[in-house]
């Protein structure tokens, strides 16, 4: 039998600074770990603890994995202190991942904010695998300041990968080094060049952003079954056993973390 609590020995091969508070950790587990976009891992810092993170790397690659992490507490502080060569542990993958099958033949809207861009990058890699399978891929990213936009070195490349892909970014408040759009990410969701009835929207970001993105999407004509949100709850086991991560009767670690809004819209305080 397998012990699902054991963290697989993993080496941090490289660390990329994405923003002042986000670093991407390039990891090599002792044996390949196959995952689907949106599935998450439990990452162990030995002796400190575990926390859930969704890989930000290409799901087609299983020998290595990248995870982009915002520094915010005990485990993530310890992660940000690590140097290449450090030993960590990985368990997983857990959860369902993004509903990729549903997206085929559709116009896909991807809305990300802050560290939420990390899981979205894995989704984009999966979509970019064969962009022609989707009618359109419309990407909308937001952050507080220009330097807080993760992966910005890749945006030009992504936007020009295929004619049906577009990418727009925004920052919350004006900045001397920014000549792009200014305003919350919801402000670039008004005039979508999308046939909404034929579309799915997926969003990942802080809960407060998810809340306002959802309200905006509903306002512009999306129906709850067309909206997928990457939800966040405290987790421990990652496999539906410890009882911690529920949203209503769903366990995010098993039924999510990306949840169809239609399933959870009735849950009180769903956005925390």
């Amino acid at each position, binding site marked *: 039998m*397998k012990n*699902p609590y054991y963290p697989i020995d993993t080496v941090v091969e490289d660390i990329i600074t994405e923003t002042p508070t986000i670093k991407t950790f390039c990891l090599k587990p002792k044996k390949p770990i196959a995952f689907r976009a949106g599935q998450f891992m439990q990452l162990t810092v*030995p002796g400190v603890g575990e*926390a859930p993170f969704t890989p930000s790397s290409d799901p087609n690659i299983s020998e290595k994995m990248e995870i982009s992490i915002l520094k915010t507490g005990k485990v993530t502080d310890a992660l940000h202190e690590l140097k290449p060569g450090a030993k960590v*542990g990985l368990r997983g993958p857990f959860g369902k991942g993004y509903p990729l099958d549903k997206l085929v033949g559709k116009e896909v809207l991807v809305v990300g904010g802050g560290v939420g861009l990390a899981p979205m990058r894995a989704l984009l890699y999966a979509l970019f695998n064969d962009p022609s399978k989707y009618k359109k891929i419309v990407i909308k990213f937001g952050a507080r300041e220009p330097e807080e936009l993760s992966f910005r070195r890749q945006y030009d490349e992504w936007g020009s990968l295929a004619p049906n892909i577009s990418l727009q970014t925004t920052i919350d408040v004006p900045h001397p080094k920014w000549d792009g759009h200014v305003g919350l990410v919801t402000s670039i969701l008004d005039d979508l060049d999308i046939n909404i009835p034929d579309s799915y929207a997926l969003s990942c970001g802080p809960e407060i952003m998810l809340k306002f993105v959802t309200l905006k999407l509903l306002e512009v004509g999306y129906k709850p079954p067309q909206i997928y949100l990457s939800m966040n709850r405290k987790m421990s086991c990652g*496999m*539906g056993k*410890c009882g911690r991560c529920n949203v209503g009767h769903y366990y995010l670690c098993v039924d999510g973390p990306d949840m169809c809004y239609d399933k959870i819209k009735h849950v009180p305080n769903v956005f*925390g």
Partner: protein
Amino acid sequence: MRFIDSTNFERLLKKLSSEGELFVPVRDEDSGKLHLQRAESFPLPEGTTFDGYRTVESLKAFGQLVRSTVAEYPMPDGEAFESEGQFPTFVVVGAKACDLYALKMVDKVLIEGEFTDPFYQSRRDHMIIISADCSECAESCFCNLLGKRPFPEEGFDLNISRISGGFLVEAGSLRGEEVISANEEFFTEPRPGQAKARDDVRAKVIEELENNNRDFPEATVMTEPLRELLTDDLWSGEAARCVECGACTNICPTCYCFLLFDQREGNESYRRISSWDSCQVTGYARMAGMGTPRAHLSDRVKHRFYHKYDYLVLSHGEIYCTGCGRCIDACSAGIDMRDVFRKVKAQAAK
């Protein structure tokens, strides 16, 4: 079905005790309550009885230790779980029907699904269960409100029903049948009238339960109204009395929630611990950056009821409460599940 007299039953237990650690219900002289106790030698401890109702403790701790190591890392081949020699066999005698229902519910969570908790599974595999009918019920017992009966129908290796001079014995598993066939000399065929004697006791206990609980509605009144989202007054009312001790979840045989955390062992070695946890305490669901989705005590009290009477019905197909009433006995604030059923029913009727 077979008959075994009391002397032979003790002989049988003595034999079985060579297979593992024997646990029996022992009556505490002062409180009159039963506690599961290890019987390390024979004769059985004074006060041992297979009559009465459930013990104070459930069987939860046999499957899920209060605190246990679930991984030591790094380790060569640490992912492979080897059950061989890890756990002792437990021979648990006198478990009641509610205890068995609870085990089955927790099995569903910890064993079934894409992942299995190998520690739990292995401890469960190492349990020999000799259950017993209830011969009376406690004031707090309410299994009848959950459509359950006070005598075991499944989930045991052997079940015993006290009748004059000994017990009627039923096998509920292959292992149970083997125990009987390996110890034929202890058993006889039941005499006419013995089955009726057993059924009379069963009927008497059911009647007692129905009498005790006649003022309360069935637990199914919870499920639908909860889904309809009752107003929060109900929960703040219960929360006003709750002292947040977590006794209800600790004593509950179907509360299985746990927390994983890591400890440093040596220079470069670490231990991962799994420990019982309670949704009634603040830290349980706290998250990075945004506090907890259940900041108020009333949210947590409410969560306990929703989890048992609604969420698990939707995700695992049944109410996760056996009506054992342990939470009622354990609550220093006097919160009574049945009272909540009644309030919910009243509110739903409005």
